[in-house]
């Protein structure tokens, strides 16, 4: 079994179990506020992140736990942030929607739709100007392709050949709205032609496919050949946010997507002729579950930040 791909498998499991625990903690009141979970979409986070180098950066969204974990944020740091503790990645000031982690190149999880795109372009231009061969990726949803900053960011990136990869995570809905109710086309990747950029559609349930497409886009960017718009078709297993039961979804839709679960798909490949056994996979899951338990209680024991701490952070 390829070491790299078994790591992807583990990372997807990490994201899945993190999201499940996060939901439980929200429902129990241990975490307050709202959260936007990404279970179902793990292959997109993992496949794209696997195509990045450690010194590459990304911006993402309020639905950003996947990229945080894929980039290696320790569970206890992530949980602490969700719980508003001082040991969280943002000292508890950000919360679930803002899992930024500069040390690992996650330079901003944004709660304003579309806002992260130009920020990624700016990061990419900084690399370009300094002659560094680094790449920036911007993760955003299908709904974000309708806001002005999407257009402005892709246009500027194209004009300046910025080393950036735009990752449209098309999970079929923006809040309660199906893509086709707010967007007149089926493939969002087709919007790339408005900027003379390559647009690529990929199966977002297949981490191998996501990785291959992302790798090509990242290499293209790194080689100075400009941006790519990569659209991953995927599905969120939950409602938009904690409080949304997702009643607007047709019956069976969720079940149909679950039959193409990204973890199952990769697990199937690993066990079908790549040398892994079902036990190997079960062990991974068990190890991760234990880590989640430990991390939850570590996080829960961490102190809250003080107002004085917070006040000191407003200005550099």
């Amino acid at each position, binding site marked *: 079994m390829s070491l790299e791909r078994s790591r992807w498998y583990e990372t997807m499991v990490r994201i899945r179990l993190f999201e499940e625990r996060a939901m439980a903690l929200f429902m129990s009141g241990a975490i*307050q*506020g*709202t959260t936007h979970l990404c279970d179902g979409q793990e292959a997109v986070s993992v496949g794209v992140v696997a195509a990045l180098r450690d010194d590459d950066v990304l911006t993402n969204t309020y639905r950003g736990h996947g990229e945080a974990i894929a980039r290696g944020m320790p569970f206890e740091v992530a949980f602490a942030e969700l719980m*508003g*503790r001082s040991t969280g990645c943002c*000292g*508890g*000031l*950000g*919360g679930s*929607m*803002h899992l930024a982690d500069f040390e690992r190149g996650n330079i901003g999880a*944004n*709660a*304003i*739709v*579309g806002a992260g795109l130009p920020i990624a372009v700016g990061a990419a231009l900084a690399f370009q100007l300094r002659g560094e061969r680094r790449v920036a990726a911007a993760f955003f949803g299908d*709904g*974000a392709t*309708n*806001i*002005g900053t999407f257009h402005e960011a892709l246009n500027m990136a194209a004009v300046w050949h910025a080393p950036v990869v735009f990752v449209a995570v098309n999970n079929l809905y*923006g*809040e*309660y*709205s199906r893509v086709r*109710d*707010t*967007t007149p086309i089926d493939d969002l990747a087709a919007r790339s032609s408005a900027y003379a950029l390559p647009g690529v559609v990929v199966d977002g349930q297949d981490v191998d496919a996501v990785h291959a497409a992302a790798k090509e886009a990242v290499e293209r960017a790194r080689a100075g050949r400009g941006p790519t718009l990569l659209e991953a078709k995927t599905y969120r297993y939950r409602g938009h946010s904690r409080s949304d039961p997702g*009643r*607007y979804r047709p019956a069976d839709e969720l079940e149909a997507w679950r039959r193409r679960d990204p973890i199952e798909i990769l697990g199937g490949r690993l066990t079908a002729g790549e040398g892994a056994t079902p036990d190997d996979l079960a062990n991974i899951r068990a190890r991760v579950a234990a880590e989640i338990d430990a991390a939850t209680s570590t996080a829960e024991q961490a102190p*809250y*930040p*003080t*107002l004085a701490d*917070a*006040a000191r952070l*407003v200005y550099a």
Partner: protein
Amino acid sequence: MTYREAIGAALFDEMAADTSVVLLGEDVATDGGVFKTNAGLVEAFGAGRVRNTPISENGFVGVALGMAVMGLRPVVEIMFSDFLPTAGDQIVNQLAKYRFMTGGQARVPVTIRSIGGATGRFGTQHSATGEGWFLGLPGLRLATAGSAAAAYAVLRAAIREDNPVIAFEHKGLLARRGLVERGAVAEVGRAAVARAGADLTIVATLMMVERSIEAATVLAGEGIDAEVIDLRWLNPLDWPTVLDSIGRTRRLLVVEEEPHAGGWGSLVISRAAREGLRLARPPRVISLPDDIPVPYSPPLEDAILPTAASIAAAARELVDR
């Protein structure tokens, strides 16, 4: 009824009364809208008049303007007040100025419903009231709903107003119950005395109204009789009501859920100072800190907000107890 239901009732009643009223916004027509304020509207009035939009705030505020100058009376929902700046140009340069710069040719009866405010643990980008951001824009009315009654009557007034209005609501109040007089339409620019009192004047909006009333109740037990004014309108601002109250109490406390810089509170205090009102004590402010954004961390979010306790403490100092 609840504040949430009051909003829905105002929308329903205005849509029923006037076929030119239409509703626009993200998911306003699905499942009652994100805050369930719109339950039943699309069923009653159809998808033409209750329209889900793409995520395009600046764009759909502009669409509302275009509809308005062609005779419709659109109500736009901006889901979180924090997103108002996303529509910054259409609010500041278009809605507010359109009538004036066309020499009065245009009539722009657009209402933006904007749901804001803290307490929800929504964090830095989803907690602003935004109420002070669009002061100083001649042509643009600003309203707030500090109670279920206001959520109904002020919103109806906003929709009927022939000028653009941003109607601010507070998401922390959505579940609050209150007496709502169905059919009532508030007077544009008229504040409400939420609690009459003789010893000091507290001026507040949105959630700070209920916190001020709470404080007043505590203070009453101590023999301090606070008047609480729910300002309701920031433009036009009901100076006569404020003035009358301060004239009687000679003590002024402003309570705002925004930093004092750039907000309506500084305008109220400036006005009192410029008019040379003789106050027994310098006016006081309880507001969000001028130098800390709203944090996610629950204890910190609580700590930066004015509370009944902090309001009462300031009130005591004003009356020397």
